[in-house]
């Protein structure tokens, strides 16, 4: 129920974290491409206990018209948490936090999506968090990228995302809700694996320069794990299980 246990051990002497994971082990990740009939592209992700559904529409007409750009298409992202996604009912109106996450996800996707091919149009990404358990922005970004590919929007690369952080003075991969609340730092990273470029990097907490470098490295390694799962999700939908 989100209540914090004061006696909880975040990292025991054997290097095992509060949910039984090792230091560089992500949570269980499952991605499914497609699934929504009425959206042009969609994806569903389970990232530990996070459950997120993403629908993509477009390219399509821009409404209101004045938002359209004659040089390029525009990307619009809405990140929204369901009232039942957290322990205590969340007001469904967009909060300050949701507006921020919508913005950072949009900016993390923009370098990958080739919107210049569709001037005067919009691509809409709708992210619905059904269940939240820390690290939703990374999970949402990973799922949004799969949904965009499913919609057939041209992209330079996929965007995979994973968080890293500092818990009990150790750099760990993929911080969960408890570690996020009680830990020392949380760093969500969005990464384009083939171009080897970072599209999202936020940091909440204090790190030394050495820790920072290590944290980025750990996070990028996590993104590569996520990328393999994204790839598999798309291959399962489009090429059967065979892939190549």
């Amino acid at each position, binding site marked *: 129920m989100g209540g914090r246990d004061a006696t909880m051990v975040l990292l025991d002497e054997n290097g095992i974290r509060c949910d039984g994971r090792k230091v560089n082990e992500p949570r269980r990740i499952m991605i499914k491409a497609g699934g929504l009939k009425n959206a042009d592209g969609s994806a569903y992700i389970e990232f530990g206990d996070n459950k997120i559904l993403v629908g993509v529409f477009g390219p399509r007409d821009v409404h209101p018209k004045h938002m359209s750009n004659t040089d390029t298409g525009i990307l619009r992202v809405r990140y929204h948490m369901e009232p039942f996604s957290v322990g205590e009912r969340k007001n469904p109106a967009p909060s300050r936090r949701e507006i921020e996450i919508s913005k950072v996800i949009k900016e993390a996707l923009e370098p990958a999506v080739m919107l210049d091919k569709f001037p005067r149009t919009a691509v809409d990404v709708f992210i619905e968090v059904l269940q939240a358990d820390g690290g939703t922005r990374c999970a949402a970004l990973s799922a949004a990228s799969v949904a965009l590919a*499913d919609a057939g929007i041209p992209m330079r690369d996929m965007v995979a995302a994973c968080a890293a952080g500092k818990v009990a003075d150790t750099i760990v991969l993929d911080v969960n809700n408890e570690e996020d609340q009680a830990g020392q730092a949380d760093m969500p990273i969005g990464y384009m694996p083939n*171009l080897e470029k970072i599209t999202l990097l936020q940091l909440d907490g204090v790190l030394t320069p050495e820790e920072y470098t290590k944290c980025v490295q750990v996070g990028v390694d996590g993104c590569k794990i996520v990328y393999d799962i994204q790839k598999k999700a798309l291959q399962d939908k489009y090429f059967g299980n065979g892939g190549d």
Partner: protein
Amino acid sequence: MDNKRKYVIPGDVVTTGPFRPEQNVELQGNKIISTTIGISEIYDDSVKVIPLTGKYIPKINDLVIGKVISHTSLSWELDINSCYVGFLPAQDVFGRDFSAHADELTSKLKSGDLVAARIANFDRTRDPLVTISDRDLGKIDTGDLVKISPSKVPRLIGKRGTMIQMIEMATDAAITIGQNGWVVVSCESPEGLLKAKKAIEMVDEKAHVANLTDQVKEMLESKGES
């Protein structure tokens, strides 16, 4: 040929080297990268990816099926199943001596009418200009509209038109395929019409199956006997 075909997703490196990037690929350094989910094909000097998903993007000289959505005093607007509307100027239908006050646009095409049209011009700055002044183009009076995914149109046509010819031969139907994924089927006999529509829907659903031609053939023949 077969060993050059590969399933790719966005970001995958299709090949490296001096190739000309064509559809759905981008040159990054010396790598050629796929920008969509599809099947990559490498030719002697060029590379392309055949998309497996995505909306219809108009291309000059494409034959499309459009639906009239509205008109002004000078032009019609066609829904061509794309993110852009097709723009059909009245001169194209009435000829050069068209005059906005003498000619009534609705006398030729009304809202809801289906037309076979060709993309005459399209660039990034304007909506696609379509024309119906050519052989086999113009208003479609009879037939049923079947909507399929635009990325599966090449599959419906088949290699050198084999698939569509087979369906036409087996059902005696006349089928007009728009590159935008809209297909008009007309047939004298209701059974043939139903069968042709079913065959088209089958291609849309099972586009990834390897021996689809045989399966469609089987379906067409089996129904014929019963």
